[in-house]
């Protein structure tokens, strides 16, 4: 067995999203700049939230909240370092 199903993420993700992610530090895929989520430029007058890198304006994070769920796209982020 080389992998387990996504249920294995439940515990870790619950812990992560229970903290204030704005203090987490991320690196922009496009330009490599590192900084806290709180320093991203967030465009809110759109169908979803679009957070862009303050260094290069590329999209780092997108969050769409539907009536029965949310979509989170972190493709623009190398990784998030989350203080716990």
């Amino acid at each position, binding site marked *: 067995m080389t992998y387990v199903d996504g249920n294995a993420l439940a515990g870790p993700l619950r812990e992560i999203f229970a903290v204030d992610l704005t203090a987490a530090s991320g690196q922009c895929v496009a330009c490599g700049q590192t900084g806290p989520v709180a320093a991203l430029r967030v*465009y809110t*007058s*759109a*169908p*979803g939230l*679009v957070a*862009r890198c303050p260094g290069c*304006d*590329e*999209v780092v994070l*997108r969050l*769409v909240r*539907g*009536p029965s*769920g*949310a*979509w989170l*796209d972190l493709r623009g982020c190398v990784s998030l370092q989350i203080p716990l």
Partner: protein
Amino acid sequence: MLSAGPTPRIPLESWQFAITTEAGQQHHWSWLELLALPSQTPTVDLHCVTKWSKLSTSWRGVSLDVLLEEVETAADFALAHSYGGYTTNLPLEDLLDGQAWIVYEYDGAPLPPEHGGPARLLVPHLYLWKSAKWVRGIQLLLEDEPGFWETAGYHDYGDPWREQRYQGD
């Protein structure tokens, strides 16, 4: 005004609109070439996914029927690209038969950058996120390719009359 990023400012001298076929053939128009094409003045209702509608808005622009007239394609799908990086997908048939325009005037005045100027796509029978602001091109595709909001939970087609807001609606 809905915006997912900073407002692009495109000088008219360097502005260009291009249609690229699935075979890689490109047809392009400069600003003056676009203005030289026969224009129409559609008056249409707009439907935003955030639940407001704006009735009887008046525009001037070029029908996609005119722009696609000389384009040879077997594509069923289109992906609109904008200055600033935005994309949105729609079936090619929704751009044809008087349903879509590249517009450059709103209410009798040049379209300001905040409203998507110098030119934007206008597809009033679909939710407004399909009417790409700051449009710079349309890519014709054999396979559907979801755009900016369509890859983040929004509906692939976006019919306001069927309230197709999110995936699964």
